[in-house]
Structure formats: C-alpha cells, structure tokens
C-alpha cells in the first residue's frame, strides 16, 4: 500500500486528524470534504442513517480511486475514510481529502474523490425516518 494514501472504513470518524494526515512539505493546498447527516430529506425528518458495506471490496475500490487521483493531479497525500453503523444528525459519515502543491489540484481531486466514491464504492445507506426505513437510491 502506498504510504501517501490512507484508506479506512471505521466505526466513527475522527475529524481532527485529517489535517496532519494530509500535510506534506510540498503541499501548499489541502482540500477536505466531510459528508454529514442532515436533519431533513425532502422535508421528512431523518432520525439517523445506517451504513453497511462490503468491506474487502469497498477498501479495494477506495484504493483504486485514490490511486487514480494521485496519478491525475500529482497529489502528495490522499485520505478516504468512511464510517459504518448508525449515525445521527450532524455526525460525519465520510471524509475525503487531497493535498497538492497548488490549490487547483487538491480542489479538483477532492471533488473527484467524493463523486467517484458515491458512484463506485459498495457502501449502502438506509435512511431511518419516524415510521419507515429506506435504502437510498435503491429504486428509481
């Protein structure tokens, strides 16, 4: 595993350590995206989200995505970390970040990381409302 790439699936995300994980003497720019639980989905109150994953495959896909980004934007560091289990409103569920010499690279890479994670990584989210539970994106 490339030592400049950090890939993890965890129970809880530690939001404080991402700066030191992405910091690098050749990086002038560090861009980080956090995904968090929102209170409402289409005006329905969300009590919690529950995440499930196919862990082996998710880690493999996350690593591929990170390597694609390093290659394309000449990144010095990449972090992709997703939480599983039940998460309440305002809790972080995912953090992705990239560091590069200049800010263009890290911004574009960070956006690519989260967009591609959402398309390819086998993680499933269930929205828990007061009276029902829904697997997100399962049905058209």
């Amino acid at each position, binding site marked *: 595993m490339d030592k400049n790439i950090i890939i993890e699936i965890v129970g809880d995300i530690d939001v404080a350590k991402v700066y030191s994980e992405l910091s690098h003497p050749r990086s002038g720019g560090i861009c980080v995206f956090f995904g968090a639980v929102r209170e409402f989905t289409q005006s329905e109150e969300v009590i919690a989200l529950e995440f*499930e*994953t196919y862990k082996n495959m998710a880690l493999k896909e996350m690593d591929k995505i990170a390597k694609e980004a390093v290659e394309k934007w000449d990144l010095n560091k990449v972090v992709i970390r997703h939480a599983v289990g039940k998460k309440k409103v305002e809790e972080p569920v*995912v953090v992705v970040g990239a560091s590069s010499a200049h800010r263009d690279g890290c911004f574009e890479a960070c956006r690519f990381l989260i967009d591609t*994670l959402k398309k390819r990584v086998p993680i499933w989210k269930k929205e828990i409302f007061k009276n029902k539970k829904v697997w997100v994106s*399962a049905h058209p």
Partner: protein
Amino acid sequence: MEVLLFGIAKDIVGRSSWYPNEGDETPATVSELKERLKKSFPEFGKLTSLAVAVNSEYAEDSVSLGQNDEIAIIPPVSGG
C-alpha cells in the same frame, strides 16, 4: 456456490447469503446469475441497477463464475 448479499439485496432475500445452486446446476456466468436471481426474487428487477462482484471486483456480464470465487450481489450503492 454462495453469493453474498448486502443492503436491500439482503432485505429482499431475507438472508445475508444465497445459494443459487439449490438442486440445480450453478450459474456459469454473471449474466446467468443475474437471470436466476431475478427469476427467484422478482423484486431485483425493480432496482435502479444490479451489479455483481467476483473476488471483490465489479464483473461484466460475460465473466465466468468458478466454485472458489467470492461472489456478491451489489445493489445500487449510496455511500457518502
């Protein structure tokens, strides 16, 4: 042949794995596996998408399935 199930796939089948070879020959390709899954559980036909992973990589319809492969049904992902 054991097939791993996640998310809504697990809910549809009601278990975390499925054996498509019950009393029958096993599916030879990803495409045959998907057909058998939809025949046994028509709910899969209503999903936004349906993918199969072989040894924890996305596999095209034409990929062959072996007895020692780790096979999983991948319903529409929704991480992030």
